[in-house]
């Protein structure tokens, strides 16, 4: 028999290292004569897309197509510290650092532009890689020519930005004014079916609403929600590294199971975008929060389906089947 169940969970996640730990990111931007804009950051792109995120942010500020950007990333000898890709911090920290660098660069474009045009900011327009006077768009200087001219001055068209918000270390009672820079919130509803013969869970649908301030790249945010949720569901129903007497019994992917394409549910998302955080364009981090609600929502759905609470993870078929049997016994007695 199949039993339907639906569960909800709402979670929060304070991102950044917080707790008074020095947490910052440094980034730089350089406009080159050869039609490239180089962003330098040590932020590790582990697949989440920070490279694309910082390009979008810089492109937005510098008003030029993302195609022109190149990200120099991941070399201790070419980049300054950007902090780790962890704690859901890169969009917020490195995003802000890049935004500041880009803003500094934009200001410099105005500065050098006003020198070239012997004018001042209100009369100057900057867009799509061109600097010109409003009244004569055809007489423009490209960013690349500007880089050349700045070079001729013996300077570089380069800008650096950093972001270093303050948090405080909690006291012996765990109390402080600001422990984390901000919080991301997410609510999820998960629909499942339990096969009472085998104790297995079929994942049907997952509905998510995330308070992320602003999605710099909505599709990549969706990718984070889907990927994080599936990891959380793996935690909820199958993943378990079994270590007995110090030795792992299932070292390898034969018996350490994660969900396959056949196991995963369908998704629907809602992005709550109030643009009210101090991150770039109001964005907050999403990486970790996307995982956290899945296991409890699943546990609540299991309870909804069969009326049994599971306090131990993962909620495996063996546990479900045993619980069903005990419940049946209880109901019969």
């Amino acid at each position, binding site marked *: 028999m199949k039993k339907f169940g*639906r569960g909800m969970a*709402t979670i929060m996640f*304070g991102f950044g*290292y917080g*707790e008074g730990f020095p947490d910052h990111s440094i980034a730089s931007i350089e406009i080159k004569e050869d039609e490239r804009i180089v962003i330098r950051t040590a932020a*590790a*792109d*582990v*697949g989440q897309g920070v*490279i*694309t995120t910082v390009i*979008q942010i810089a*492109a937005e500020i510098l008003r030029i*197509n993302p195609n022109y950007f190149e990200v120099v990333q991941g*070399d*201790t*000898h070419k980049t300054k510290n950007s902090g780790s*890709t962890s704690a859901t911090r890169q969009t917020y920290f490195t995003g802000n650092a890049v935004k500041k660098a880009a803003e500094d660069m934009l200001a410099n474009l105005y500065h050098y532009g006003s020198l070239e045009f012997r004018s001042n900011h209100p009369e100057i327009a*900057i*867009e*799509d890689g061109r600097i010109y006077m409003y009244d004569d768009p055809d007489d423009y200087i490209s960013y690349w020519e500007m880089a050349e001219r700045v070079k001729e001055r013996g300077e570089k068209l380069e800008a650096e930005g950093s972001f270093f918000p303050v948090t405080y270390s*909690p006291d012996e*009672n*765990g*109390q402080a*004014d600001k*422990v984390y820079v*901000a*919080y991301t*919130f997410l*609510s999820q*509803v998960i*629909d499942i079916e339990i096969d009472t013969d085998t104790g297995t869970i079929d994942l049907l649908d997952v509905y*998510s*609403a995330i*308070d992320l*301030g*602003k*999605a710099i790249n909505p599709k990549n945010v969706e990718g984070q929600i889907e990927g*994080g949720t599936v*990891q959380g569901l793996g*935690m*909820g129903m199958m993943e378990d590294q079994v270590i007995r007497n*110090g030795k*792992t019994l299932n070292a*390898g*992917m034969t018996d350490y199971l994660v969900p396959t394409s056949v196991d995963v549910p369908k998704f*629907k998302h*809602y992005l709550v975008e109030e643009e*009210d955080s*101090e991150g770039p364009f*109001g964005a907050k981090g999403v990486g*970790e929060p996307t*995982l956290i609600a899945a296991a*409890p*929502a699943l546990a*609540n759905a299991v309870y909804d389906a069969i009326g049994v*609470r599971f*306090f131990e*993870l993962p909620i495996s078929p063996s546990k479900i089947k045993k619980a069903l049997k005990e419940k049946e016994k209880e109901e019969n007695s």
Partner: protein
Amino acid sequence: MTDQNKRIKDYFCKHTTRCTIEGVKKSKRFVGHDILKADAWDKVTGEAVYPDDISFDDMLHIKIKRAVHPHAILKDIDISRAKKVQGVVDIIVAEDIPDVRQFGLIIRDQPVLIAPGEKMRYMGDALAIIVAETKEAAKKARDLIQVKVEELEVITDPFRAMEADAPNIHPDGNIVITHHLNRGDVDEAFKNSAIVEENRYQTQFIDQLPMQNEAGVALYDERHGVVDIWAATQWLHDTQADVAQSLRLSKDQVRIIQPTIGGAFGKKEDVSVHIHLAIAAMRTGRPVKLCFTREESMITQSKRHPITIINKTGVDRDGYLTAWETKFVGDTGAYASSGPAVVHKGMYHATGPYNCPNLRGVSHAVYTNNTYAGAMRGFGTAQGAFAYEQQMDILAHKLNIDPAEFRLKNIYQKDSITPNGQQLTHSVNAEETIKRVMELSDWKGGRK
């Protein structure tokens, strides 16, 4: 990148500098759009270079001989037979590198190689670095190394580890760190609660399981005295610092270059191949490569902490949370890694996004002889949520309220106070996420 130019007119306000704030907000051309991922082209064609894709001519291969027991004193290590394997270039044991220091993310408690007389504390501890002309020769030599140990009690349970008579895994005892939370008057609040619900939750060891195992290549530039390491890390400059201090080099002498990273999820925060690669490269003067197998990766590198969570939660008759008492005991395994930060971060989130005026909590990260636990997506709060969100559901059912309504009653608003006493001054839209997810799922208080 696809043709963004076509879309520029749609999103771009021509007189940008003269727009109103509102106009600027709507005129975003790139932020808020589905710009295609910059690195996707390399990745769909197989051109992206991951650490294990890098090779040099004349490159040597490394295998690591690892612990033979989860908790034992190394009495003797005999590499004489292994050295005779054809193609073996170097076998490095602790006595070859007397100056090398311990490493670790937060506490430097991990030895680079275990020396005779020292303890192996889990199955992933390294005993010898085998460097050979081929992978096969390195494997064969590794399997010929003979090790004698004196076995100690294997501590597998953090509660056993905390007992007075448990042997110390590290000199300073088995409790790595303890944190507390205290707000309001919990005992009084429980007395005045309509319902008090107490449960014990247990989570498991999880492997982050990024598809790409730890791997890397290193090269020693003798002229400049710089060792170049191509290997993944989630924090370039921190790994650089850890490697440099361990090898007693200046930071400038350790250059880490990040190839494309095949997933991480917290697993690539810790040093894995880096120090062994550097040592082998510096000793042999040749390029060296070390790739973990999946088994090695699972046994050696960090896990998600199993945490025992005891939650006691009170509500009043109207369905408002009154008090919350929590205890987190996290098994951080043989080494601290991120453990000193993970377990209490979980506790700091123990109540979820819900207003609760009275709070008491304690958390311990505890050493055992299991594979060490460190960072994984969620960092203690995923374990915590499994507990608090079931508490919320259980209480809703006991109160006979729709679980969504119960959450809405207690959900954080702007200016709510977190368990740490932090006032949430901005960007608190938790309530809206509940309302939106109810809409999206056509929520009717449980079953469809």
